[in-house]
């Protein structure tokens, strides 16, 4: 009986590891910037290229920075929820129009309504690379000190919002008081 203990013990350790590991999305990489200052960016605005948007635009508030594009299906999916956040004044959302076509992006906002305070235009994927973005939509939660406290990959919905964002925003606002 004793001789089976080792393999069975090994198996017992391995199985929970597999269960946890297989349940994860292998494509969802953690951001390397969690608890670090958001990388500096300074982009022309989407609608008015003569105006800029940068980290300074956040004005010391807790904000969302949402990388989106018209070619991105997940962005279309979460658009309605982002609009809802805007309408209820939940949190300011800054958009980064990522690797997109300016005309198409403006038309998309005209047609579907604009949830963003303002969108920057990153057609050349410079800010995207600096922020470690590799798939859209990606949404960063940046606190009042300009630190990235969370990143979510994929479309946000009400459930994810309650689970992942609300507690972190509450904690950030509490810490800021």
């Amino acid at each position: 009986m004793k001789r089976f203990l080792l393999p069975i013990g090994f198996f017992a350790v391995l199985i929970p590891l597999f269960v946890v590991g297989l349940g994860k999305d292998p494509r969802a990489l953690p951001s390397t910037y969690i608890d670090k200052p958001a990388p500096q960016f300074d982009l022309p605005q989407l609608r008015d290229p003569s105006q800029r948007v940068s980290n300074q635009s956040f004005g010391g508030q807790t904000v969302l920075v949402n990388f989106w594009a018209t070619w991105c299906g997940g962005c279309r999916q979460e658009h309605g929820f982002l609009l809802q956040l805007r309408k209820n004044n939940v949190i300011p959302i800054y958009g980064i129009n990522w690797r997109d076509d300016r005309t198409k992006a403006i038309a998309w906002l005209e047609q579907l309504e604009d949830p963003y305070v303002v969108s920057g235009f990153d057609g050349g994927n410079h800010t995207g690379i600096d922020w470690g973005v590799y798939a859209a939509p990606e949404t960063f939660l940046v606190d009042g000190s300009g630190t990235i406290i969370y990143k979510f990959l994929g479309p946000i919905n009400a459930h994810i919002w309650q689970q992942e964002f609300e507690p972190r925003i509450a904690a950030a606002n509490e810490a800021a008081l």
Partner: protein
Amino acid sequence: MKKIFVLFASLMIPMLGSAIDTGQAFDDPALQARYEKIIEEVRCLKCQNQTIKDSNAFLAGDLRREIRRMLTEGKTDAEIFDFLVVRYGEFALYRPRMSGKTLVLWLAPVFLLLIGGIVIVRILRERMSLPLDDQQEPEQS
């Protein structure tokens, strides 16, 4: 026979079109060699089982562009890998560097080999201690 030859020859045509990286080569062959070595070591984060040399995802193209830029600016290989690791993590490198976080990756194979070795040695020892003749019991007929 000729038809078969033509068939095989035409099946090989797609292989000619495999060049993904359409950027212009560096004038300096040493720089070009470094560039080609680096892009073989970097994972395309969008299509995670490909290097950025093999991938035609736009992200791979953009990363190749950044690597070209850094090479022309005279950055060292280490600086270029740092640039990627800061943004995307060790996962971006096909050969992650040894550090506290990646130690498990580097040591696990040695560890597993060791366990396997111990198991084999133990099994062999056990068998060696058995009598050679396995027909000890008189056969019953």
